[in-house]
């Protein structure tokens, strides 16, 4: 474990949820403030954004700090599903422009601090990080055949959720997007190491690649 790594897994998941628009309203201000003040959190967020932008062929927008704030605000206005996908039911909506402005400010600050390191960086690649922004397949909880019992067992203890799901599911049938992300990451890691030991198919990652495009 890198000693400099102080952003713990819970923070990573929350940041990921924040990027996906899945943070409850009560936590929004906290994570906006975190992005504005925590360099490591911004670095993670920036990495996610940069990769996403590269995939979309828009890396210049992210690396050019002067255009980042406007680009983010514009994208939030034009394509809300990109940075603020559909929220889980029960999560209140903040006024979009206010959130956009806060995000834009955070990303702009991020770009100023991160972009110089990325532009023209010729240092050898480091080894890959653990997945700070794992996939978050959309929540899918079909009503049939599911039994869910929530056990609240004390104020200090996290809630344990019991699941019993139909056997023909194609996706993780769990309630929490964060839990889905965790299981998806486990699956990716498992496929990779298990695939080193045996080989029965053309690729070890087939089940992962089909795992997250089915809508509820």
């Amino acid at each position, binding site marked *: 474990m890198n000693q400099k790594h102080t952003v713990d897994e819970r923070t990573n998941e929350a940041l990921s949820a924040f990027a996906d628009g899945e943070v409850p309203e009560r936590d929004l201000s906290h994570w906006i403030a975190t992005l504005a003040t925590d360099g490591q959190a911004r670095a993670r967020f920036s990495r996610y954004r940069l990769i996403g932008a590269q*995939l979309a062929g828009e890396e210049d927008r992210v690396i050019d700090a002067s255009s980042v704030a406007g680009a983010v605000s514009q994208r939030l206005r034009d394509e809300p599903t990109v940075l603020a996908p559909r929220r889980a039911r029960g999560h209140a909506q903040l006024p979009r422009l206010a959130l956009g402005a806060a995000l834009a400010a955070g990303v702009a600050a991020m770009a100023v601090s991160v972009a110089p390191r990325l532009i023209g960086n010729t240092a050898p690649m480091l080894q890959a990080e653990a997945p700070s922004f794992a996939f978050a397949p959309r929540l899918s909880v079909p009503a049939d055949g599911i039994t869910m019992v929530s056990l609240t067992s004390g104020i200090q203890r*996290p809630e*344990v959720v019991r699941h019993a799901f139909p*056997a023909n599911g194609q996706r993780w049938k769990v309630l929490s997007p964060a839990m889905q992300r965790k299981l998806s990451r486990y*699956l990716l*890691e498992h496929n990779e190491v298990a695939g*080193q030991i045996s080989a029965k198919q053309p*690729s070890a990652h087939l089940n992962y*690649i089909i795992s997250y495009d089915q809508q509820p």
Partner: protein
Amino acid sequence: MLKKTCQRSGSRLGSAAWALVLLISASAFAAGDDPVQLYRDMRQAVHNSDYEGRFVYQVGERLDAMYVAHRMQDGHELERLVALNGEPKQVIRSARAVACLDPHRRKISVVGSGAAIATLSALDDSRLSALYRFTLGRKVRVAGRPARQLIISPRDDLRYGYRIALDEQTRLPLRSIMLDHQGNVLSQTLFVDLKHGAHVTPIERDLSALQLAERPGADALPVPAPSNGAPADDHWRIAALPTGFQLAGVLTPEKGLRHYLFTDGLTSVSLYLEETPSQPFEGFSRISTVDVYGTQRDGAQVTVVGEVPRKTLQLIANAVVPK
């Protein structure tokens, strides 16, 4: 004239016989082939050869078209797996990492490469025959190529079986069917075309997104080094495992999380042990053909993942106990 005819006939016969000899010798399979060795050959081919092709992947009623390109570069595997229908997702593997990219949703998952696990001492797969029945099936034709069926049947209900059509020339799995112990098809892959060797398209240039993910950053983490046994500071021990399974290695993806890999030589199961779980859960879940089982033990979250019957997942979950 008759002599010439005989000579010509003899020549034709000789040519035919020689062609037959060539055909037989060129055939990758012989009657005495050891099916277990053929499985090992297939494993070797999947990991260490260059190939490229399109195939279909079926799970239940779902059918997906896929493209895969696999190359060896400086002794390391490079792989690109692309979904050809639906969202253009892809998985890219390099020596250092594996990334799953979703360009449409702008999402990416990156984990360390599993190559490190391959550096462990060679796993003992001599017991494969005790756990599975390996038999050679009939000759078949897949993707326009001659192949031979390899049938791998489990000897108990703790693991799944496979029916694989091995390419005669390359030993690659042209068709692979996974079955439960009752013979029901769980999934299958089927190549529709295959290129190999020097004909494979270079994929190095397609790794740019992965390289970007690997760029130095303040939060970059090293790939965890695997160990053959439990770490010295481990508060857990491995009790009785299901028949045939052994511990292949232990990784520490992050602080407070242990990843135990168990294998019977053919299939593998991962157990994740989270000392202070933020999202505890109990029960089963499933994605595609992979089941997951979660349970609590001494305040820790135990999550078991694998393409095995649920009964096996539970047995493995029960095998990790506090010291």
